[in-house]
């Protein structure tokens, strides 16, 4: 019996189940508490206290919000496409959950890497699932049969088409530098201090001196892909009321919200893994003799980096006005795509020269 329970396939399934439950809880809590963080952050940027009423320091506010959303009726307005209208919110959240499965949170503990599925095409999987998100918002907007929602759906499609290209070009550049699609390996390569992180390493090893620029492009594209300010075209409330989500009420609207925050978490995790060394310590390497404690420390480093990036996302939202739609497309087609193509070619050339030498 013990032998059966500790056999490899059972352990794999067990790990997967634990991971799925953990990820669901993680995404739910993150969505709830990132809303609080966002509102608190907004409060501080705007010289006011933010939510303070529910619980000490407003700490129970997300729970109150969640209860309110769950207890509300999900209204499907007459004239809408009922099926698509109901599917869309789930389709925003589910791909984000899938993405989180492949993201490595930490080093190996007792021989198991701290990742849901350590698959060799992790990078590819994250970006293929990540692009389903736009489809869901488009369906939601279209199914609503609301003119504001339809305009929003049209906007989000062209926005995501425009920003997927530079983002994937950047990812291909990083793939050429790291030489692998396995995210765990990508992180392992960046061990030994912050100068070994991809964002700096490319500069001094001369694989690609423009990696910091690539990182900025990735971050901008990530903001655009997750519809965050200043690129929140889909939800521009002073123009389109709530964009594609105008007709949604209750928890189906809440799912869109959760999906948005889950996508931010995925985006910031990917930035951390690809550029900022994932769970690697910024100074030196955590000695292997520390064992599980060292791994936990690594998880801490990962979250510290990820939440720092999320803070930047929040910071940007409450600082900048919204871009104009055509300016947004111009930024992508005229600046980001040529720049990322150039860095791609530069990396290719430098790597070829290195292999020839």
């Amino acid at each position: 019996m013990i032998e059966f329970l500790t056999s490899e396939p059972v352990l794999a399934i067990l790990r997967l189940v634990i991971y799925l439950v953990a990820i669901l809880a993680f995404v739910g809590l993150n969505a709830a508490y990132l809303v609080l963080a966002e509102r608190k952050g907004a409060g501080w940027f705007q010289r006011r206290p933010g939510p303070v009423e529910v619980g000490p320091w407003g700490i129970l506010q997300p729970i109150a919000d969640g209860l309110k959303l769950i207890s509300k009726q999900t209204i499907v307005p007459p004239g809408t496409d009922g099926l698509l209208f109901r599917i869309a919110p789930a389709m925003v959240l589910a791909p984000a959950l899938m993405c989180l499965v492949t993201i490595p949170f930490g080093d190996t503990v007792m021989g198991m890497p701290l990742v849901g599925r350590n698959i060799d095409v992790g990078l590819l999987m994250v970006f293929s699932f990540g692009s389903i998100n736009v489809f869901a918002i488009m369906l939601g907007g279209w199914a609503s049969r609301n003119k504001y929602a339809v305009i929003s759906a049209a906007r989000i499609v062209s926005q995501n088409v425009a920003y997927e290209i530079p983002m994937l070009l950047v990812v291909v550049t990083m793939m050429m530098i790291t030489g692998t699609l396995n995210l765990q390996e990508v992180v392992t390569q960046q061990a030994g201090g912050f100068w070994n992180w991809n964002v700096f390493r490319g500069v001094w090893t001369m694989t690609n001196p423009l990696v910091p620029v690539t990182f900025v492009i990735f971050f901008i594209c990530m903001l655009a892909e997750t519809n965050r300010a200043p690129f929140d075209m889909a939800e521009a409330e002073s123009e389109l009321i709530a964009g594609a989500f105008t007709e949604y009420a209750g928890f189906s609207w809440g799912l869109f919200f959760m999906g948005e925050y889950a996508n931010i978490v995925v985006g910031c995790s990917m930035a951390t893994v690809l550029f900022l060394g994932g769970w690697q310590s910024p100074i030196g390497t955590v000695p292997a003799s520390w064992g599980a404690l060292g791994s936990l420390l690594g998880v801490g480093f990962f979250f510290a980096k990820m939440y720092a990036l999320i803070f930047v996302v929040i910071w940007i939202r409450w600082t900048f006005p919204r871009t104009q739609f055509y300016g947004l497309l111009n930024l992508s087609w005229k600046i980001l795509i040529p720049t990322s193509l150039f860095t791609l070619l530069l990396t290719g050339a430098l790597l070829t020269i290195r292999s020839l030498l």
Partner: protein
Amino acid sequence: MSALKEIKYTGGGSIQAPPDETFILNLGPQHPAAHGVLRILMEMDGEWITRAEPVIGYIHRMHEKMGENRMYAKFLPNTSRIDYLAAMHYTQAFVGVVERAAKIEVPLRAEYIRVITGELQRISSHLVGWGAFVMDLGGFTPILYAFEDREKILDLFEHICGARLTYCYHRFGGVCNDVDDFFLSGTREFVPYMRERLKMYRKLVTGNIILRKRLEGIGIMDAEMCRRYGATGPVLRGAGVPYDVRRAEPYSIYSQFDFEIPCYPQGDSMARYLVRMDEMEQSLRIIEQALAKIPEGPILGKLPRVLKLPAGDYCYAVEAGRGRFMIRLVSDGKDSAYRLKLRTPCFSNLSPFEEASRGMILPDALALLGSLDLVIPDIDR
């Protein structure tokens, strides 16, 4: 798209049956960018506006008619409800027209107080306009900074007249309460404070590249268009016409002060934005001069026991926060007006919107709408 087209639009606008490939977007009266209950029917081709028609009247309160059937003193509080963000200017205009008709002398101290409160009011009005405008562009933070500054002005106003929004501070022949040291020293402290803040806003908001891209060259309303529709205030000055009632037909004691009229020739949304920012600085200059020269003395002139205006036709215009506000009062010698006409700036400033927004895309049109700094009760009266 066929499902969208089947919806019938009734009431209000003349836009009824859209041609092929276009649809009608009903913006308002409950829309975040409408700043109240303005409704705009837009004929759209995708996101491009082919025609936009403002539908007004949702908050029409018959102020003009009320002015005809109540005594002058009883109508006075009404004036601060027309444009609630520039209540001081509106009360001053009504008080002014009655004083002009009844030939009431206003003591000099009262005139200085009127200028100081009027310019403070202009700053607070422009602050709200600025914050709401940037909020229309998606920047949420500036409006809370603007309200923090405005709060200081409102505290001063509350101290002298008890109200924070709809002041009825002016009286025929003067003002109702004298200003004390709290108000004067508070205003003296406010001037340098506000200068610092304006410098900060210039750095943080005006110089922002996204803001400039969204405003420069967008929403052009040139001087000719402004003349045709009678647009005044920052809208006209943003089109390069240095018209300011304080200079063109000086009222109160404005002719004694040294100030400039900010004027930008571009006529785009950015020009209107910059005019407002510069005007706040000029207002601070006027306040500084008035504080230095304010004399001691009475604050209320001599008034007849029953206020009856001699029969005739009287006019009085002020430069309100949003442009030229004029009251035309026709009296037949009784204790209430025969006809009271309120010429409000927002109505005239909104009028060119239909022409100016043609061919724009929706976000730009809403930026243009924000740059007009509309107060809807002021349009509908």
